[in-house]
């Protein structure tokens, strides 16, 4: 399932020609649409790596889980700290689990 951009929050990274989500996307799928908001160019090519969700400074990108993994209301949300990521995983029964993963050693 492709990333969903919340249009009210996305500021197109102040309309720069290359926003953060575009820079991090490994498949080069994200781009700025005509309304200067981020959008996914080719929905079927997205492999749900969630790089754009983590990188977005406005928290404007959500990644929906593919239905083979978990149907609604299942979701996975990252929260970026200075050197760790907190993942919140909600399964189809609404059970909440949280994982903290260190992503930098200093």
């Amino acid at each position, binding site marked *: 399932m492709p990333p969903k951009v*919340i249009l009210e*929050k996305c500021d197109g*990274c*102040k309309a*720069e020609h*290359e*926003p*953060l989500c575009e*820079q991090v996307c490994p498949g080069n799928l994200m781009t700025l649409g005509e309304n200067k908001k981020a959008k996914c160019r080719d929905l079927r090519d997205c492999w749900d790596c969630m790089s754009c969700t983590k*990188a*977005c*400074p*406005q*928290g*404007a990108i*959500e990644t929906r889980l593919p239905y083979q993994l978990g149907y609604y209301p299942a*979701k996975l*949300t990252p*929260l*970026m*700290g*200075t*050197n*760790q990521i*907190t993942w*919140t995983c*909600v399964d189809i029964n609404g059970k*909440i689990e949280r994982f*903290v993963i260190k992503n930098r050693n*200093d």
Partner: protein
Amino acid sequence: MSCFGVLLCRCNGQMPNIDFERIVSVLSKDKKIAAVEIRDRLCIDPGMEELGLQLKESGLERLVVAACSPLFCKKLFIGNLSPAFNPHLIEIANIREQCSWLVTDPKAATEKALETIKMSAAKVQKAKNVGNWDRNCVYVLKNKCDKCKRCVTECPNQAMVLDCDGFPEPQEGKCQLCGICLGGCPLKIISLPDFRLEEISAMLEQIDYSAREPVVVAFMCDRHAYWELDTLAAEGYRTGANLRTIPVPCTGAVNMSIINDAITFGADGVVLVGCNASQCKYRQGDILAKARLTNLQDTLQRMMLEPERITYLSLSENYTEKCQLDIEKCSGCMICSTVCPFGAIEAQTLEHNGEKRLIAVRVPQACRGCGICVGYCHSAACWLPHSQDQEILGLIDRAMEW
């Protein structure tokens, strides 16, 4: 890791509810702390410079001074200790106002003091010269920067200029060290000389979140919200022991990743305490902080956490000390209303002692306690509660005695 020491001040017995023996015994068990020194009154201790040099000779590089609020003695301590220590490697832990005076329960106050010292210790341990200690401006780590130009658009002073390669370059003369660029940087690569995200994250790690009471972390604006709490503590205001305060240069300097860290470590609530709308000294710090918080609140909701856990609180400027007007003495000349820069004094016709006359009336919301009207008043009807002539004269007399 270079070792560091702790210098404690008893402040002449003004901290009766803090158990210093326990603090010393806990700190001296800590292997990272090389020396713990305790003094009765550090601010008038004539041997402070020698003490600093002694500590330096025993191999210390960094120092935590646990004493009163940085409002009072920070410059004095740093001045006295600067021959021995780099000023950026000295950290003041505010245990008098924030711990002893705000918290009444002795056990809780001692625990909070210990945590405050540990937080300052974590900050001073992480202190590192990334290249801007001798330059008075922010530092951008350019090899990680992705040229998003957020800092350029958000800087209230236009101090960020793009260099020839398109990277932001802070201008030394223009940068006012508010840290608003740091708060907005999505890659967390901007740092102030004394305020790096790693330091704040290390401070948050030291807080004990397992307490039964909900732990609230407050990021308070260094300009006045932090001082305001100190002044309130001196005037008898009390809070619970669960509040942990971290001074920040401006609420706009709080990067959302720090709040995320606090929530990850287990804080039950995070408050940003800053100015009222449009009173921000740096002009837009509070607006940006509020906008960022609203975005984060949505993310929290998606994470099945209550969005009320992070809030913005605003304290009005000069909450405690405001100019007073004495109706009995006022002659109604209205000089005060002409000189008041904030338009806080209005003329009103009031009936007083049976006769109708013109009297100056203060508008409390607009008054900022600058005291200009006090200087101009012919009939001594305007006065400031905490700086009256007699008090100032008394202070001068005492200064002359020394």
